[in-house]
C-alpha cells in the first residue's frame, strides 16, 4: 500500500539540506481549467432546445461509479526549489441492489521536483517514485508548483484509467458512470455502457441564444445533443442536463454535462440515461458543497478514497 504524504514527510525529516515547508497550493485537490467557449456541433437538429426527460427511473441492474482524488503539498525546499509530495488515487464502486462496494482501487504516492532537489534526497525516499520536472526553463518556485500540479493531474487521470479499464475487463456489460469527461481515454469514448458526468462548465459549447437555452435548462430537462469540438482523445456526444431547479440560486446550480460514446444508439438512450440520473439525485451528497451536481455514487468513491487515506 503506498505511503501517505504524512508518512513521506517523516522519511524526509533526517535529510540534510532540506528546509521543511508545509504549503498546500491552491487547486491542489483538483484540475483547474480556464473558462472559455468552444462551439460544438449539434447532433440533434435545429436550435438548442430544452427537452423534458420524464419522471425519474431507477438505473436498471448494477451500475458502477468511478472517481479519483489527488493531493499534493510542498514538503521542503532545497535552496529555492520546492520538493512536492503527491498522492493520487482512483476507485470504482459498484452498486448491486442498493448497496455499493469498492471493486477496484489504485493509489500512487510520489515526490516531484527538479533533478537537483530529488538528488538531494539521497536514499531518504528509497522505493518511492520520483518525478523530475522539466528543466527547460530556469527554476522558479511558483512555476515549479504549477508544473507539478499538471503532473499530478496527469497521474490522477492515469490511475482513473487504470481502475476504469480494470473494471471494464471484469464487467464488460455493466454501466459505469465516470466523474468527469470520457475523453480521458479513447476506449471510454467508444464504450456504449459508460457515462461521463461532468460538473465543470469552464468550457461552454454554445454562445448567444443557444447558450441561454443551455444554461437556463429547467429541472428535469436536457439540452439538444451536441458533439464537443476539441476532445483530447476521441469524439463523444454530450448534452447539458439540469438535476435541480436553479432559479434563485445560480445558472450552474444542478447543471451537469453528460457525455456518452458518439454512437447512434446513444441518441436513443439519452432520455433514459437522464431519467436514471434524475433518480440518482437521492440520496443527496450533502454536506458536500457540490451536492447539486455530485452524484451520491461518485461521492461514495471520494469518501472511500479519503477514508483509506485517513483524511477527515
Amino acid at each position, binding site marked *: 500500500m503506498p505511503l501517505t504524504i504524512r508518512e513521506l514527510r517523516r522519511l524526509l525529516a533526517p535529510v540534510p539540506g532540506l528546509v521543511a515547508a508545509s504549503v498546500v497550493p491552491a487547486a491542489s485537490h483538483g484540475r483547474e481549467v480556464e473558462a472559455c467557449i468552444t462551439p460544438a456541433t449539434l447532433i440533434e437538429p435545429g436550435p438548442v432546445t430544452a427537452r423534458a426527460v420524464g419522471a425519474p427511473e431507477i438505473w436498471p441492474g448494477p451500475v458502477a461509479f468511478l472517481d479519483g482524488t489527488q493531493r499534493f503539498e510542498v514538503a521542503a525546499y532545497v535552496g529555492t526549489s520546492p520538493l512536492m509530495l503527491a498522492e493520487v488515487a482512483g476507485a470504482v464502486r459498484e*452498486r448491486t441492489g442498493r448497496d455499493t462496494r469498492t471493486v477496484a482501487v489504485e493509489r500512487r504516492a510520489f515526490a516531484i521536483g527538479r533533478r537537483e532537489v530529488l538528488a538531494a534526497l539521497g536514499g531518504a525516499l528509497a522505493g518511492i517514485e520520483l518525478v523530475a520536472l522539466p528543466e527547460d526553463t530556469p527554476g522558479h518556485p511558483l512555476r515549479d508548483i504549477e508544473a507539478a500540479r499538471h503532473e499530478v493531474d496527469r497521474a490522477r487521470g492515469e490511475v482513473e484509467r487504470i481502475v476504469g479499464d*480494470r473494471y471494464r475487463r471484469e464487467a464488460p456489460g*455493466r454501466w459505469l458512470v465516470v466523474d468527469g469527461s470520457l475523453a480521458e481515454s479513447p476506449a471510454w469514448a467508444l464504450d456504449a455502457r459508460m457515462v461521463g458526468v461532468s460538473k465543470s462548465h469552464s468550457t461552454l459549447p454554445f454562445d448567444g441564444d443557444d447558450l441561454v437555452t443551455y444554461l437556463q435548462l429547467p429541472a428535469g430537462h436536457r439540452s439538444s445533443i451536441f458533439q464537443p469540438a476539441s476532445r483530447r482523445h476521441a469524439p463523444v456526444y454530450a448534452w447539458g442536463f439540469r438535476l435541480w431547479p436553479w432559479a434563485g440560486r445560480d445558472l450552474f446550480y444542478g447543471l451537469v454535462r453528460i457525455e456518452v460514446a458518439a454512437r447512434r444508439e446513444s441518441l436513443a438512450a439519452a432520455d433514459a440515461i437522464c431519467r436514471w440520473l434524475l433518480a440518482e439525485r*437521492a440520496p443527496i451528497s450533502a*454536506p458536500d458543497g457540490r451536492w447539486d451536481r455530485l452524484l451520491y455514487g461518485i461521492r461514495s468513491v471520494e469518501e472511500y478514497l479519503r477514508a483509506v487515506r485517513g483524511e477527515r
Partner: protein
Amino acid sequence: MKNPVNNPHPAAPSGPPPVGRVVATELKPSTPHQFFFWTARESPVGIGAIVRVDADARTVFGVVTDGFAYSDLQTPMHAVIGADGDPAGTEEPTRRAEIRLFAAAVLRHLPEEPVQPVPLGLVHLASDADVVTALRMDAYTEGDTPTGIPVGVYAAGGLEAPVYVDADFLLGPEAAHLNISGVSGLATKTSAVEFLLSSIFQRFPAQKGRIAAVCFNVKGPDLCFLDQPAPLGEEDLRLYARLGLTPKAFSPVQYYAPYKADGVNLNTLRTHEALQANTQPLLWGLREVLDYAEVLLNRDDVDAKADAFIDFLAERVVGREYEDNTLPRKFHVKSFADLDEFFRAIFAVLEDAGRGGEVWRTHHIATIRKIRNRLGNISTRSKGLVTDDGDVNDLPWGGFQDRGLYVVDVAGLDPLAQDLVFARLVSRLREQLERRELGVDHVVVFVDELNKYAPAEGPDSYVRKMLLDISERGRYLGLVLFSAQQFRSQVQRRVVGNAGTTLMGRMDSDELALPGYSTMSPATKAKLAALPKGELLVRHPHFTQPIFVRFPRPAVLSGREGVERFPPAIELPFVEAVSRRLRALDPSLASSKIQDLVAGRREADVRKALNATLRARPDQPFAFFVKCLGREVKAESAAPKPGIRPVRTSADPY
C-alpha cells in the same frame, strides 16, 4: 460480479471470518475497560454478544453493551430535499453509507499485565473456548476437581456455549447466595431457580459434600409439583444436552404443609390422592413455637419484661415438671392447652391474693396477660400448623438426604404463621449445620417474595435480621440463600448485596431507571426490559461483566400444569379426610372400614391417632392407627349417687 476485482480487504487466511474492527477516535477512545468496533450492516453481533479482539500479541475479550447506527446524512433536511418532500417517493437507488458501531466492555485481557487500552484489531465472535476464557471459567471448569455448575447457554451469531458458575462462589465458602429479580409471570424466576437447583444437584462435586434444598412455596401451586416430570420440547432437550445435564424431576422430594383449621385436610394445592405418598403435614406444638416467640411478638410493643417472662416459660415451665408453692399443684406443660391451664392457675392465685396481687414471681400480671394473649393468638391464627395437644410432625432434622428437596408449602398460611415457619426452619437449619448434625453439608434455602420478608423499609423484624445474618454469615455454615423478588430495590440492600450471584429476568422499566442500575448501559436495560422467557442476565464474581444466557425449562411440571394434571382434592368432611390420609399410606385400605372405626369417636382423639400414624409410617398403618386410637370407651350413664340424708334436727326454737 461476486468477487471484487482487487479486494482491498482480503479475508483472514483461516478460521471464522472477523465480524468487525476496533475503532478508536479522540471522542471515542479505547480504554482498558471499554472499546468500540464497527461491523457490517448485516451482522450477528448484538447486545450481550461476547467478542474477541486479536491484535499483535494481545487478545482482549469483551461483551457488547451498546450499539449505535448512523448514516452520512448530516441533517434530516437533506433527506427531505433528496426525496422532494415526499416520504412515499421513489426509494433512493443507493443506500446511504451507514455504520453499525458497538460499544463493548472488556471481560479479560491476555496477557493480563500490563493493563493497556484495547488495541485496534479484528473482532471475532467468541467460540466455546473463547467464552470459557473470557468469563474466566477456565479456573473452575478444568482440572481434576471442576466446580462448574451450568447456569445456561450463551448464544450469539449462531454460536452457542455453556456458561458455568463456580460452586465455590455460588454455594460457599468463597462467596454464596443467589438473588433473582424480574417481573411476575415473564421473568421465569421460579423456573430459573428450579433449573439451577437441578443443575446443582447433578453437578455439585461429590468431594464438596452432601447438599439438599429447602424451598418455601409462598404462592399458589408454584413449587407443588417438583417431583413430577414434564414433557420437554426438542429445543429444551437440546439445551440440556448442550449443558451436559439430564432433564429429570427432583428425587427424593418431601412436601410439608400445615393442616387447615379442621386438622385433617392439608392446607395446600397438592392434595391430589396420587401425590399423598410424599406429602406430610407440618405440625408444631408449644415447644416449637415458644422457641421462636420473638418472631410473633416483635411486631408489637413487647418489652424486656415480656421477653423475660417468655424465657422463664421456655426454660422453666414448658416440657418439664414445674412446681411452685404459690400454685395449687405441679404442672407439666406440653401443649397450648396445658399452658392455658397454667396461666389460669396463676391468675387464680393473683386474684385470691387480692390487693398486692399484681406480681407473680416478679412478673407483673399485665405482662403475663399480654404473653398469654399473644401465645393464645398464635394457636388461633395458626390453627392447622400449631396444635393445642402437642402433636409434632416436622422436617427430618438430622436425617436430610443428599440431593434431597424439601418443600414447605406456606402459601395458605396467615403471614404471621409464614414468618414463624420461615424463622423456625431456617434457624433450625442453621443450628444443625453449625453442629454438623443435619445430614448434609450444604442447604440451599429458596425464598420467593423476598421483599416481603426482608423489605428495604419498615421496622426491623426477626425474619429480616435472620435473613441478613444468613446472607452475611451463612456461607461459612453451608447455609445458602436463593431468593427472588420482583423489585430488587424493595429488598434490604445488604441482603441482596451479599448475594454473590445475581440473575435478572425481564425487568420493569421503572425499576431499571433507579440509580441502582446506573452501571448498565441503556441498551442492556432495554434488552432486560424486553427479555424473552427463558433468558437471564447473570452476574457472578468470576464474570467481570454481566452475561445474558438462555436456560431450558425445568423438567418438572409448572404449578399451573400440575394443578391441571393433579387437581386438588375437594376439601373432605372430617371422617373422609382421615380415610384419605390413611389410604395414602396403604391404598388397599377400604374407606368404609376406616369410617366405621372412627365414627362416633372424638375428633381430637382421631387427629392424634392419625398424626401418630403419619409420623410413624408403619408397615401396617391401619393396625397402628387402631392401636393409637385405643379402645372405644362406651359412654355410660353414671348411676346417681345415693344422697346424704339431711340430719334431722329439732324444731327451730325460733
